[in-house]
């Protein structure tokens, strides 16, 4: 999606299980939801 909107050099950080231990943990685990940080460059 980022590249479709014109960004390049897309880099993703390691994923983090940010919902672990939270009230949303079961929903997040069901869909394998993870936190991530994204870098991308605008041409």
């Amino acid at each position, binding site marked *: *999606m*980022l590249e*479709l*909107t*014109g*960004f390049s050099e897309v*880099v993703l*950080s390691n*994923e*983090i299980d*940010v*919902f672990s*231990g*939270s*009230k*949303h943990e079961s*929903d997040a685990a*069901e*869909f*394998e*939801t*993870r*936190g*991530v*940080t*994204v*870098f*991308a*460059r*605008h*041409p």
Partner: protein
Amino acid sequence: MAQSAIGVSTVDRDQLRAQISEKYRDVAMDPEMGFHFHNGRPLARMLGYAGEVVETLPWGTVESFAGTGNPFLFGELAVGETVVDVGCGAGFDSLIAARQVGADGQVIAVDMTAGMRDKAAAGAQAMGFGHVEVRDGFAESLPVSDAVADVVISNGVGNLCPDKPAVFREMARVLKPGGRIQIGDILVHKPVPQDARDDIDLWSG
């Protein structure tokens, strides 16, 4: 409801915004009440923010922090840079950015929730950061001129927006040529059924 395009949900946008704003008003006003996500100092630790950085921030800013990543994982911002923080919340990342870019830089912090904007502005004042400006606005229609930003930061916001391409187009619009985004968000590795996509309670928690 049908999924109309890649990254675009047909969930009622205004209803979603109202529920999310209500939820985050609670995060601003009563951060100890407990949410479906982590917040505050434990979350900052989980996301890799340096303790000595967090310690310098006002308590009210830290306790209402909610995010899914760490925009500074890709390196500190440069002195003098102009930053747009999309969905700044209580200003946690805005204040870290403000310290990094210094008084010769600028941070434009945008949020749709009044309680969060008030906290962000109070935090900036407490830190003596006159180069932080807090504005009312949405991620899909930023109250920012074209091509002013060296970097756009954001943290846990895009996943709350039903039209994700619009969010990225706005980020591109406000960036200078060669500018960059450093944003925290979420990845979902399994397909989400349509009934879950259309459930606003699941979006807003």
